[in-house]
């Protein structure tokens, strides 16, 4: 298939960006979206032009690097997948595709489609950890019985890959789904109880400091999340935050 691409090009974090039109031809419907961009970049390189910079790593939906806003939606038109899992069969010959970086004050553009998501790292550093004895006599994790329901909820929350689609989808560029998933995965487990109250206050404080917006409960984040993280985690984080501040 032949496609028209409208891609955000920006030289660096301070330069003014703009949409640039490209055309790619003979794209196979079996290709992934990133492979289609590889074809474009090979063509641009052959012509001596600057290839389009975009983030990617595992290309199997685990690392969360390949975060692109495709035709107005994070990770494109399909549901519950990352950009690398998006196949070109979702598009038709002659389609026009708009490709932009995820946009948020807390995710500054580095170049073209690459954004700096270190704000997520700093939020995690603020509290997404547990204190364990690493002196050599660490207890086996399976020695602590955990309720199956709690374990399942914790696992669901832990499946967040930190891609930033929740921020990209939210009209307020809110990171509440990401932060709540990280808060929940520890709050639900016995190992996470020691830092429970401090964790939620520190992580929310860091989240606010990074400049993310507040949650308006539109639910767009959970719809666009490639891992299906539920907004019930946001409610849990709100409870945790209210509870920790009442004490």
């Amino acid at each position, binding site marked *: 298939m032949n496609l028209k691409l409208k891609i955000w090009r920006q030289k660096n974090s301070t330069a003014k960006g703009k949409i640039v039109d490209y055309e790619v031809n003979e794209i196979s419907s079996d290709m992934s979206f990133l492979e289609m961009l590889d074809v474009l970049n090979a063509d641009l390189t052959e012509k001596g032009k600057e290839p389009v910079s975009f983030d990617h790593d595992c290309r199997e939906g685990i690392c969360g690097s390949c975060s692109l806003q495709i035709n*107005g*939606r994070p990770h494109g038109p399909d549901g519950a997948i990352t950009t690398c899992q998006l196949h070109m069969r979702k598009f038709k010959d002659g389609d026009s595709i708009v490709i932009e970086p995820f946009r948020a004050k*807390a995710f500054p553009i580095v170049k073209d489609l690459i954004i700096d998501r270190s704000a997520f790292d700093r939020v995690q550093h603020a509290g997404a950890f547990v204190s364990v004895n690493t002196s050599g006599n660490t207890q086996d994790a399976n020695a602590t019985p955990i309720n199956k329901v709690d374990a399942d909820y914790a696992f669901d929350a832990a499946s967040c890959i930190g891609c930033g689609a929740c921020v990209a989808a939210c009209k307020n560029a*809110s990171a509440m789904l990401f932060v709540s998933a990280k808060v929940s995965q520890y709050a639900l487990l016995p190992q996470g109880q020691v830092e429970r109250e401090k964790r939620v206050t520190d992580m*929310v404080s860091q989240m606010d400091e990074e400049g993310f917006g507040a949650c308006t409960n539109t639910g767009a984040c959970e719809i*666009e999340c490639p891992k299906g993280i539920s907004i019930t985690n946001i409610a849990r984080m709100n409870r945790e935050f209210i509870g920790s501040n009442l004490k």
Partner: protein
Amino acid sequence: MSFLLSSIGKKVTMSLSAFFLISFLLLHVAINFLSVVSGDMYNEASHFMGTNPIIQFIMQPILIFGVLFHFTMGFVLEYQNKNARPVGYVMKNDKRSSSWLSRNMIFSGLVIFAFLGLHFYDFWVPEMQYKYIEFKPPNEHRYFSELVHKFEDPIRVGFYTLSFILLMMHLLHGFQSAFQSLGVNNKFTPTIKKTAWAFSVVVPMTFVFIALFHFIKH
């Protein structure tokens, strides 16, 4: 203080003020509906509300504070949220992931705020003038005739109807959303959503019915 300055703290205060305003709305519609049933009953209830010192000097200032707080905090949050994405998308396709109502609370809120200005001008300001500026003697029979008089104007009734449609839209997202902001999302959530939906439609439409009833009848 840090709680109130946090993004979650602000949403919690928005929710609590919303619940307070929703409870007031229920009381207001119940009293207004009396005007459809009986003018005397409406006069009696209005006279009680207008002369009871607890309602006048404690509940009324709390209500005014609640309204102003909810609107002010709404604008503060909107401003902060807009700042969180200073450069917008060239293309944004929200239709599949969220409802129009949930994305446009600030616009429905603005129309409701404009309506409250008219409502205060129509009812509250004359009431304050009657009681505390002109010091007229209490007249427990005036309320019904004042109400009917206001609903004679088709332009006022039209704006009144439009405002309550916007209030319905605001409540359709806001009521159930307030529970989520307070951390309530559990097995009762489907029931809460259905109840909130019913309230959000029935209460504003009852206000509209009352206005149209008096406009047509008188």
